[in-house]
C-alpha cells in the first residue's frame, strides 16, 4: 500500500508533470509536495487551490447537486492544473494537485494515472 511519498513520486513521473502536491483542503496545508521548483510555489498553490475546491463544493451544495467532485481541470496558456479529490474515510478532505506542461502532457492519460494513484493511496 502506497504512502504519500510514493504517491507523489508516481505523480511526478506522469508525462509533462511540473509538480504535484497532496493537500488538506480544510486547512490549505500541503502534506507533501514534489517538483515545482522556482516557477511554481507548491505550498502557495496548495493554499490557493483550496479556495477553488471550497467554492465548487459550496456551489454544488447551493445547487442541491448530490454528487461528488472527481476532478477539476484548469487550463492555462501553457499548463494544465488538475485537482483530484480523494474519497477518504476521514471527515477532512484531501486533494491531489498536479501541474502539467501543456505541450508535453497527455491530458486523458494524466487524469487516468492520477485516478490510479488515488486508488493506491487508499486513505
Amino acid at each position, binding site marked *: 500500500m502506497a504512502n504519500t511519498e510514493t504517491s507523489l513520486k508516481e505523480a511526478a513521473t506522469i508525462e509533462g508533470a511540473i509538480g504535484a502536491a497532496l493537500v*488538506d483542503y480544510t486547512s490549505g496545508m500541503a502534506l507533501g509536495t514534489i517538483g515545482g521548483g522556482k516557477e511554481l510555489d507548491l505550498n502557495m498553490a496548495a*493554499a490557493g487551490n483550496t479556495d477553488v475546491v471550497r467554492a465548487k463544493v459550496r456551489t454544488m451544495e447551493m445547487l442541491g447537486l448530490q454528487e461528488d467532485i472527481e476532478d477539476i481541470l484548469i487550463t492555462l496558456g501553457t499548463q494544465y492544473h488538475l485537482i483530484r479529490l480523494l474519497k477518504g474515510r476521514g*471527515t477532512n478532505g484531501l486533494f491531489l494537485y498536479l501541474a502539467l506542461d501543456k505541450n508535453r502532457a497527455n491530458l486523458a492519460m494524466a487524469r487516468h494515472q492520477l485516478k490510479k494513484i488515488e486508488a493506491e493511496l487508499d*486513505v
Partner: protein
Amino acid sequence: MSRAAVSPMLVRLAAEKATGALLRDHGTLYLVDGRVVHAESPAAPGVDVLLTTGGRLPREGWDEAVDRAGAHRAVGRFLVDSGRLHDGELEICHLGAVFDAAFFALSPTSGPTRFRYGVGHWFGTVRPVSAEAVERETVRRRELLDAVWPYAAVDTSPVVPRPAAPGQTVGARQRALLAAADGERTPAELARLLGRPAFHTLLDVRRLAAAGLVETPLAPEPEPGPVPPPLSATLPVADPDIALLRRLRDALEAHL
C-alpha cells in the same frame, strides 16, 4: 519576506540536530535529530481522538496498540503492521495531528520554554518534518485565521450560533459543527467532540462568524495608547503592509 522566528529555541535546536522534547506553555514538540516527529497540546485532539471518534478505529484497537507497542515507542508502526490502518492513512492522520498540536504549542507565550534532551514519545516516528516547515505552516495558519475574520475572541469563547439569513446555506461540515454548538462548548471542545483537528474547527468557526452565523464576542476595550504623531502627507514606507490594511478594512466594515 523575512519573518521573526516563531520560536528561536526551536530554530537553534533544529540547527544543532537535537533530540528531545521542547516544552512550552501550550504544548510539547518532540524532536529527533532536529526534525519534528510528534507534537501534543491540550488544545488539540490527539491521534487517538481523530482515529476513534470518526469510527475509523475502535477504541480497543487503539488501546491494544498502545499496550503492545508503547514501550518500544512504535505505536504508529504497530497500527499499520497489525493491519488496523493503511500506511498512507496513518501518515496523513499523524501529520495532521502534529501540525495541529504544533500550531497551539508554538502560539505566542510569555511562559518558560524548556528542552529535555533525549526524551522521546511513545507513538514513535512516522514521518519527520523539518522545524522550518512546522514554523512556516504555523505562521501561515495564524495569518489565514486573521484573513478570514480578525477577531481572535471567537477562538476561545463558547460558540453561539445565530440564525441564518434567508437563502443562506452552509456546507455539511459546518452544519455538523453548528448542530453540536450548544452555546457553551468552545471550539476546542467541539473539535474533540467531533474528532476533528482543533485548527480546522477554529477556521470553520471564524468563517461562520464572518458569515454572521456565529456570534462574535466583543473584545475588551484596548488600553488607550499614546497619541500617534500626526500623519505626514506621504506615507513613509514604499510598501504598506497589505495584511494590516486588510485587517483595518475588515474591522471598519464590521462597525458599519
